[in-house]
């Protein structure tokens, strides 16, 4: 086995995993605060990126477009809380989950209806070119993406720790009832958290869009985030990051090494299910996920 | 010391199945003397070829320290080999303590009385109970031995032992957080104890999963009602019944499946009549008032025709009238079917009224047990309930 090649696969996988984590964080934020498994996160990624790129193509400067999309995502967050979540308080999780799929259709239709079905290039000024470190080539774009992800986690961290709203969010995540009893506006918190997820979607959309182009397929990024979520737990941002790293690295290593070692042709495309199997095997040992809290079943 | 000395101290009262052993003012000087006495007893009993209740008179009996171990071992052996139950009269303070601590460790009842008459009366009660529940021994039906239960670092139960006799109503009481529900959960197989063992009908069943425990003849209700909320009263109770069924015949609903369903339905209807819930048969239980839900839950538990019924606060949250109804049902169940009942209850009045035996837990440990009267008078229990620091 060529060690350099192995390391390249490993590092490439870890960095790819960060890209998955970016999407997964959006899921985690919403699930943590409102218990909703938001399948529309992929559609939000698409919606945000398409709106951004369409605005810049119409001549808007970078910062203005960014601010406009951010504002739009915040409005969207509040609108979703008002129109979708509020009537559905206390409904079963599965109903809420299906509602978010309906929401995904809605956002996809709006995005393509308003901006058209055309695909777009998105240049964010960082080329996806390799540079060499000790004989191992690493993509500068991937490093940039990882840096952005780190920054994003940092921003979210500061937001949760330092701001009043952030603390309220954490309180809600810990205990809805208790948070209510100390006077935290649950609805406000939900709206904020959806807006925050919108922000995360924008960041993920820009990075994914720069790599694959801004097109409908951005919605598929949600699928990449799912195994990360099972592994890392639905309620932990740290879990989403670590889960992403593990999934990214193992799926790449599996694709390169396992396929060929079990006698299949190389490049067998096991990447689509391998992460799920991995996560599944992991869950069997630890049903609460990597960072989820073990629940004592009481009765 | 010769055999005639021993023989004089032993008498058999056939009419009340009792062997009276008189240790009063007897001095066991060493282990050999213990052996000699018990060899004699064993011999005598073996000749009868049956089991006996023991009435043991201790007054003034002296046991040399070096003979204690022997005495305990022989006594235990006797109990296991041919005992139906033991009552003890007026042991010395030291003997009393020793018996109590052993009883605690090995989960038998101390049954210590001050006079022979009291002991005889208790013996009568024991016999009566055994008659009610039919043959068998008054040995522990359910025996919980040295149970420890930890959640992570939290100790929910520490070394709890007690026993439940067949056909009796045993109550577990204690302040909030004492570990009562944990105890029930351990018994029903829902929690696996960290340490300790559970015997049922003489067999070790510590490690059985909950559904197998249930199939042994255990049924229970829950503190926070755990009904199948989406189902009707009828379906809830039917689900509690255990009968042979299979997928294919159920799907076809022909012949055997249909007959069996109807037969079971008839059984369930009897329960419905017994608990007076005819009117809510077809109602989804989720929408029933609390008191009725409790009753349906009892019905579901009874549907399995359990040998042991575990009730976790069956009267919690009820008004006086509902409580009386429920207490009546519990007693009726015990009376009509001889079902052994273990019950957690907060209402001391109810506990004292209907229990044969009471076990008191506090902070995960057993602090007392005995008859309702004994427990009520126990200063340790009073302290625990009043929360006085000790």
């Amino acid at each position, binding site marked *: 086995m060529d060690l350099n090649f192995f390391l390249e696969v490993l590092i490439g996988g870890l960095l790819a995993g960060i890209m998955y984590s970016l999407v997964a964080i959006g899921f985690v934020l919403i699930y943590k605060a409102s218990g909703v498994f938001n399948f529309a996160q992929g559609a939000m990624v698409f919606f945000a990126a398409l709106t951004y790129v369409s605005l810049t193509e119409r001549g808007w400067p970078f910062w203005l477009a960014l601010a406009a999309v951010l504002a739009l995502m915040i409005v969207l967050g509040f609108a979703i809380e008002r129109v979708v979540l509020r009537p559905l308080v206390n409904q079963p999780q599965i109903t809420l989950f299906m509602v978010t799929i*309906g929401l995904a259709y809605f956002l996809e239709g709006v995005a393509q209806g308003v901006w058209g079905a055309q695909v777009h290039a998105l240049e964010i000024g960082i080329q996806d070119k390799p540079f060499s470190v000790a004989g191992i080539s690493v993509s500068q774009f991937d490093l940039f993406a990882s840096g952005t992800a780190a920054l994003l986690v940092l921003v979210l961290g500061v937001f949760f720790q330092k701001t009043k709203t952030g603390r309220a969010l954490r309180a809600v995540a810990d205990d809805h009832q208790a948070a209510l009893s100390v006077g935290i506006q649950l609805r406000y918190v939900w709206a904020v958290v959806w807006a925050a997820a919108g922000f995360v979607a924008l960041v993920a959309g820009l990075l994914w869009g720069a790599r694959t182009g801004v097109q409908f397929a951005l919605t598929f990024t949600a699928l990449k985030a799912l195994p990360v979520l099972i592994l890392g737990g639905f309620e932990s941002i740290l879990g989403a990051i670590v889960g992403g790293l593990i999934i990214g690295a193992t799926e790449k290593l599996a694709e390169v090494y396992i396929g060929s070692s079990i006698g299949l042709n190389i490049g067998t495309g096991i990447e689509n299910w391998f992460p799920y199997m991995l996560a599944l095997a992991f869950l069997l040992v630890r049903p609460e996920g990597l960072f989820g809290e073990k629940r004592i079943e009481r009765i | 010391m010769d055999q005639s000395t021993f023989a004089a101290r032993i008498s058999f009262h056939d009419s009340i199945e009792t062997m009276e052993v008189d240790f009063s003012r007897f001095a066991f000087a060493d282990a050999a003397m213990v052996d000699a006495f018990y060899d004699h007893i064993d011999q005598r009993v073996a000749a009868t070829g049956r089991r006996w209740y023991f009435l043991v008179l201790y007054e003034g009996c002296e046991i040399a320290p070096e003979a204690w171990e022997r005495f305990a071992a022989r006594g235990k052996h006797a109990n296991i080999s041919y005992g139906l139950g033991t009552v003890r009269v007026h042991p010395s303070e030291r003997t009393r303590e020793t018996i109590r601590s052993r009883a605690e460790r090995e989960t038998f009842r101390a049954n210590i009385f001050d006079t022979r008459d009291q002991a005889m009366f208790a013996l009568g009660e024991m016999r009566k109970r055994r008659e009610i529940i039919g043959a068998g021994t008054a040995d522990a039906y359910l025996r919980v031995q040295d149970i420890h239960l930890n959640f992570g670092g939290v100790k929910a139960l520490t070394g709890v032992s007690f026993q439940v006799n067949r056909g009796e109503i045993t109550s577990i009481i204690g302040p909030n957080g004492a570990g009562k529900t944990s105890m029930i959960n351990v018994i029903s197989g829902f929690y696996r104890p960290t340490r300790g063992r559970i015997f049922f009908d003489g067999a070790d069943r510590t490690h059985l999963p909950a*559904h197998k425990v249930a199939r042994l003849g255990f049924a229970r209700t829950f503190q926070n009602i755990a009904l199948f909320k989406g189902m009707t009263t009828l379906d809830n109770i039917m689900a509690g019944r255990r009968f042979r069924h299979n997928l294919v015949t159920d799907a076809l609903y022909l012949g055997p499946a249909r007959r069996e369903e109807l037969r079971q339905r*008839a059984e369930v209807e009897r329960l419905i009549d017994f608990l007076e819930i005819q009117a809510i048969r077809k109602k989804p239980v989720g929408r029933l008032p609390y008191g009725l839900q409790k009753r349906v839950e009892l019905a579901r538990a009874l549907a399995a025709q359990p040998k042991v019924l575990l009730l976790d606060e069956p009267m919690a949250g009820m008004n006086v009238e509902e409580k009386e109804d429920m207490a009546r049902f519990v007693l009726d169940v015990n009376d009509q079917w001889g079902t052994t009942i273990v019950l957690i209850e907060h209402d001391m009045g109810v506990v004292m009224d209907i229990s044969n035996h009471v076990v008191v837990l506090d902070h995960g440990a057993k602090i007392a047990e005995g008859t309702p009267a004994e427990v009520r008078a126990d200063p340790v229990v009073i302290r625990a309930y009043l929360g006085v620091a000790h």
Partner: protein
Amino acid sequence: MFYRLAGQFKSSYAADQQIFPIRQDRIFVIGVMVCAFLVVPVVANDYWLGAILIPFLILGLAALGLNILTGYTGQLSLGTAGFMAVGAFAAFNFILRVPGMPFLLALFLAGVTAALIGVLFGLPSVRIKGFYLAVATLAAQFFIEWVLTKYGWFSNYNPSGVITAQAIEIAGYRFDTPVSKYLLTLGIVAALALAAKNMARTQTGRYWMAVRDMDLAAEVTGIDIVRTKLVAFAVSSFYCGVAGALWAYAYLGAVEPQAFTLDRSFQVLFMIIIGGVGTVLGAFLGAAFIVLLPIALNVAAHALFPGVSTDLTSNLELVLFGALIVFFLAVEPHGLARLWQIGKEKLRLWPFPH
């Protein structure tokens, strides 16, 4: 007025344990069946039979299968389409490789194959619950899709990986017209729906629902949860497998593994959520809603926005579809079956509600 229980007394448990204890319900169901078997084939044209009713029935069957698992047993699954694919490809191979294989037997075996695979992928449900389980069933979805695409054997080495359904022949009769295919599908679906209803109202179904409502209580009631869950996985997958085979044989005629993607799983899940979780009727109401709504929207969009570009109308359809789903779930989260039930209760009291 007509929906009255007065005067209907049950004198035996047998009468009370009937599949439809209320007389009007019985009459209604019989009426629907007569209509479906006798009137529809005469009245409906090929378009309705071949392009709407057949897919409606088949997806209704799949929804029924998922409802057994998710609605009755409470195990959320996103692998429905995967099990449908197993059914379709199994039926194809049984008929292809076993000479003289009767169609109905092949259909049954396809269901059994799907059931076995379903049990296999249901095993994690022993330890995993809720959304973790849902996401875990995606492993089944993707793995099955991959295997069927990867290994040419399953499609008899068709270069496109597409299986072309053989003609349906039962006892020498060829089912090749929309009417005959409709009747065949209807017969199979009706029989399986009846079986599902029977299972649901006997001890098998009570065990499922007990596990759904309170698995811990079910266990201490003596119900073997593992067994119950696996039985539900098996029955559910059997239904999905048969639905998948019918999808290939009675509807599309040619399918590729990509006909059974995650989108299809979501579609079926929508059917039971919108139709009503844990009811047989709900599966079919939901299927009708989900099958008909996009078509109706498509037809209506052209009429509603005649001057607007088709780009926009197509997207509007999607937007409306999403919005209607959100709206509907917000208004009646318990689904169409609940509405139906409420309607019946109202009718029972009408015109004197007090």
